[in-house]
Every structure is written in structure tokens, then in C-alpha cells.
């Protein structure tokens, strides 16, 4: 892997509600992102993906753990500097754009605020629009005059305007028409081919993540349960949860039989306090899993997995 632009160490986030209710949205997530690389993060809703995104871009402070960007601790960066390094693209493109600001005004605000391309803002705005393959005539539109895909392109252009090292994409295609999703994905890939930029691509949809990611991390209940390169995780998944996710990708063939499905509902009591988080849904569960939580360990060439059974199997082989 090339230079590491982002390193998260044991990031954790707990939300304390009224009374005793505590939600551990993130429970010790460590990750690494290389320059120009894409890290895909997958998991079902409620697994802490979006919390991770908010922590990384600085919308929230982690309750434990730390992050470094290009070797500097994020907590030492001021808002402006941090903004220049990492940007976020939201799921819903319409709500992420100020309804009273035309496209040009929104982009210009970013440029003037960060003193970028002073005097040549208009030229830069055109460039940015070109970069996201939007015609220049869109500059005079209000967000509501754009289609979902067009609005998302504007949101991407706005994120790119600060020339960030990293862009966090929080389910950037989930709110879009199926027909537009591929366009946005291809656009993101195209941008990465032209400029040096790292992505963190968050999605619940493995089929989206597989198109963009070099490395993939699978999250379950606030932890990473499996990570590795694209082919390791997707083509040879080890964790039973990853296996189930991979099989949940719809196959347009009624005769295909699914060996294992993820139990659709999380257990009402939440994660069991002892043992593996996945034990109640796991088809491979063993007595050992009920007692000891598996750690995320390397089982060879940076393929990491947090599963007793999977680890034993790989070592036997």
C-alpha cells in the first residue's frame, strides 16, 4: 500500500440517552486508507457505518480512540484545515444542498471561504462542473431544479472544490434511481483515475462496493468483523456474516438456493455481552463462541477476520 493518508485507531462512539440507555454505535474500529485508494465499508443499517463517517469528517468527536490524517492527529487540526483534507458526500443529495443557493453560489462560497482560485473562481466552478460531467448551464439552477443524480454530482463537485485528500461517501447512491447509480459510481471511478484522491465508500450494498473498492471492511454492530482486499473479502469470504451478505445480493434466478440467510431482525436485547456478537445469528456457532469474543486477526496477506471457526479453518488448511 502506498502512503497512508488516514489511520483510525480504536475509534469508538457511545451515545448516552436519557436514563440508562447507552448505544455503543462504534466499538473500537481501526482502519487504514492508502493514498489514492478506496476503502469500502459494508454492513447492515445500524452497524455504525454512518457514525464512523461522522467521526472521520469531524461532525462528531469520538468517545475513544483517535485518527490521523497524513500523520497528523485530527484533534490537532482546526476546522478549516481539516475541511481541506477530508470531505463528506451525503446520502440524500437534495437535503445536502442549501435550497436557496444556486449551484454556482454554493461552489463559489466554498472557493472564497477557503481562498482558493481567488479571482478565477468562475473558471474553477466550470472546471468542477466538468469534473462531475455536469453542463455549465446547471450552474444557475436551484437544487430543486436538478434530478437526484444531478444534485449528487453537485454535492460531489462541492466536496472536490476544496481539493481534499479524502472523500467519505456515505451511501452516495442509495437515494438515487437504480439507473443513475452506475453513472455516479463510474463518475467516482473516473475522478479517481484523473486526480489523486482517496475514497471511503460506505454502503449496505455489496454489489455497489465491489465496483469501487480496493479494500473492503465488513462491519457488524460497531466492529469490523472482516477486512481485506477486494477479492479476499468478496470472493473468499471467511466470516459467516460476510458470506451471508454476499449471498444476500439478489441473483435473478429463482432456482438459486441460498444456504444461509441472515436472520432479518437483530435480537431485541442487542448484542450479547459475552462471546461473539454474531453468535445468535451464526450458523457455525460453537460453545467457545458463547464465551470468548473473537479478535480481528490476520489470517494471511492482510486478510483479517474476527471469527473463531473461520480462523481455525484457515490454519488447518
Amino acid at each position, binding site marked *: 500500500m502506498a502512503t497512508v493518508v488516514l489511520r483510525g485507531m480504536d475509534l469508538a462512539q457511545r451515545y448516552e440517552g436519557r436514563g440508562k440507555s447507552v448505544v455503543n454505535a462504534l466499538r473500537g474500529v481501526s482502519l487504514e486508507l492508502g493514498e489514492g485508494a478506496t476503502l469500502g465499508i459494508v454492513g447492515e443499517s445500524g452497524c455504525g457505518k454512518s457514525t464512523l463517517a461522522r467521526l472521520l*469528517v*469531524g*461532525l462528531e468527536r469520538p468517545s475513544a480512540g483517535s485518527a490521523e490524517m497524513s500523520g497528523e492527529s485530527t484533534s490537532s487540526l482546526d*476546522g*478549516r*484545515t*481539516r*475541511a*481541506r483534507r*477530508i*470531505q*463528506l458526500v*451525503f446520502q*440524500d443529495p437534495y*437535503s*445536502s*444542498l*442549501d*435550497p*436557496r*443557493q*444556486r*449551484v*454556482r*453560489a454554493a461552489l463559489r*462560497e*466554498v472557493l472564497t*471561504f*477557503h481562498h482558493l482560485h481567488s479571482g478565477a473562481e468562475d473558471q474553477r466552478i466550470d472546471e468542477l462542473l466538468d469534473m462531475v460531467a455536469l453542463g455549465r*448551464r446547471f*450552474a*444557475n*439552477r*436551484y437544487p*430543486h*431544479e*436538478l*434530478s437526484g*443524480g*444531478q444534485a449528487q454530482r453537485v*454535492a460531489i463537485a*462541492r466536496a472536490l472544490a*476544496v481539493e481534499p485528500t479524502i472523500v467519505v461517501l456515505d451511501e452516495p447512491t442509495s437515494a438515487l*434511481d437504480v*439507473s*443513475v447509480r452506475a*453513472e455516479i459510481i463510474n463518475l467516482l471511478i473516473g475522478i479517481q483515475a484523473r486526480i489523486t484522491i482517496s475514497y471511503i465508500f460506505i454502503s449496505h450494498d455489496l454489489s455497489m462496493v465491489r465496483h469501487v473498492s480496493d479494500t473492503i471492511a465488513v462491519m457488524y454492530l460497531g466492529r469490523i468483523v472482516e477486512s481485506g482486499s477486494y477479492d479476499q473479502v468478496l470472493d473468499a469470504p471467511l466470516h459467516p456474516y460476510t458470506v451471508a451478505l454476499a449471498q444476500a445480493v439478489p441473483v435473478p434466478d429463482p432456482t438459486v438456493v441460498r444456504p444461509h440467510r441472515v436472520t432479518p431482525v437483530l435480537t431485541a436485547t442487542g448484542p450479547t455481552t459475552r462471546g461473539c456478537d454474531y453468535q445468535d445469528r451464526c450458523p457455525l456457532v460453537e460453545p467457545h463462541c458463547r464465551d470468548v469474543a473473537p479478535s480481528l486477526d490476520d489470517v494471511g496477506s492482510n486478510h483479517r477476520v474476527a471469527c473463531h471457526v473461520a480462523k481455525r479453518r484457515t490454519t488447518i488448511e
Partner: protein
Amino acid sequence: MTSDALPATTRSSDVDGRPSRTAWLSVLWRHRNGRIGLIFAILVLLGSIAGWTQLTPYPADQLGVGHILASPSTAHLFGTDQFGRDVFSQVLQALAVTLEIAVLAVTISGVIGSTAGIVAGFVRGWPGAVIMRLADILFAIPAILFALAIVSALGSGVVDSAMAIGIAYVPIYVRVVRGPVLSLYDADFVRAGRVLGYSRRRLLFRHVLPNVTGTIAVQTSLTLAWAILDEAGLSFLGLGPPAPTASLGELVSNSTSLASHAWWTLAFPSLAIVIAAIAFNFLGDGLRATFDPRELSR
């Protein structure tokens, strides 16, 4: 792209990407109630300017400019009262007084209420909570009763009436403004602004406020209508500004005993109240449409 079908919208907007200054007027005009409200409001405004500058057909207070209790005619459009005063001139002057009180009242409640609402929405924690509880307490008291109490305490006069009515409407502003500010603060585009490094001040003034000016304008117009009614109510109850300053409510109050002989002494001042109230109520309705950015580019 999936849809390029949207027409390029250049109408009512200039090249710079900002809606032109008059675009909102055309939206207002296209709105039925807005149009009625605008016309009535202009009439009310012209009428009160005439009253204010004493450009009335006859001096409003002068006795015997016509016969006593003459019915409406070309010489006296609204007839005359029991002292031979011209009712039309009286209505114009009273309208000016009523509008002055209402505008003052709305300024008071608008400035205090909007500021408090923005603070309550943008500053989390105890300051917001304290403001809201105070507003709740005020809100629990009916506006007219509250105004009555204040006028009884302060005494009557143009400024006193305005303060009384104005303070009574503060809590409505607080609530109406706080809601959108709260939800805007959590909106993705404000979050996006935070991710872009924008300061709280910038977010408040450039992104949150422009999105609540519409709400404030609409509320102002509506409150103006209510304030006109309240002022009329206070004056009717004898708590309006003391003579010789007569507001519409006092005209109505004075003529109730005459109504059976001379309907015009009661009907025209009452009608003026209704028109003024409708004017700003409808105008508020139309403004609501104006401040929807969707309408600006239609």
C-alpha cells in the same frame, strides 16, 4: 443523464445566479390570495397615509362639515355622524392610528420574538430551554387578556397599546421561528457546511437565516392582521389611545348606539377593520408561496 428535461430557467433570475429583486412580486401576483392581499394592503396603506398626512376630504375632527347623520352621498362617501363629522375622513384618520399601533406592535414582537426564537433554536442547552419555558408561560395567557392587563397597568396611549399587543405576540414568533431553525440546524446542508469548515456564524447568517426569512415575513404579515383586530378590540373596550386620537375600534365603539338610525357610522369603520385584517392575512398567505424557492423559478 437521466433527465435533462427540466427547462433551463432564466425567467425571473439574472445571470449571476440570484433571483432578481422583483421576482417575488410576480410570484405574489400569481397567487390568488396574495393578489387580493396585496391590493387590499396597498389600499389600506394609501388610506392611512391620507389619514396620517391629514389629506382627508374634510378635517376628520371638525364638527358640522355636513348635516348631522347624513346618509352616504357623493359629498360624504361614508355619510356623517351625530356631530356632522365626515365619517370617511374619520375612518382614514382612525386607520392611520390603528395601523401605527399594529405596525409598532409587530415590530416589537417580531424583533424580540425572532431573535429569541433563533437563539432558542441555535443555542442548545439551558438558554434555549429557558426561552421556551418563558414563551410557554406567555403563550398560556390569551393575547387580548394579556394586552388588557398591560394596558391597565401601563395606561393607554399609542405606544402603550403597541407594547401591550406586541408583547402578547412574542411567544408565537418564538415558536414559529425556533422550529425551522432547529430543523435547519440538523439539516444535511448545514452539516455539509460544518464539514466544509464554515463557522457557526456563517452557517447561521448565510444558510439558516435565509431559510427562515420567509417564515418570519409570513408571520409578520399574519401578526399584523391579528394586531389590527386586537387593537380594535382594546379600543372598543375603551382601552385605546385617549381622545382626540381615535382608532377604528373607538369609532365602532362610539357608533354602536347610533347604528339603528345611521348604519353607516358603524358599518364603514367595521368594514375598514375587516379589510385591513383580510389584507395582511391574505398577504401573509401569498408571501408563504413567495418564499418557497420552488416558486421563484417557475
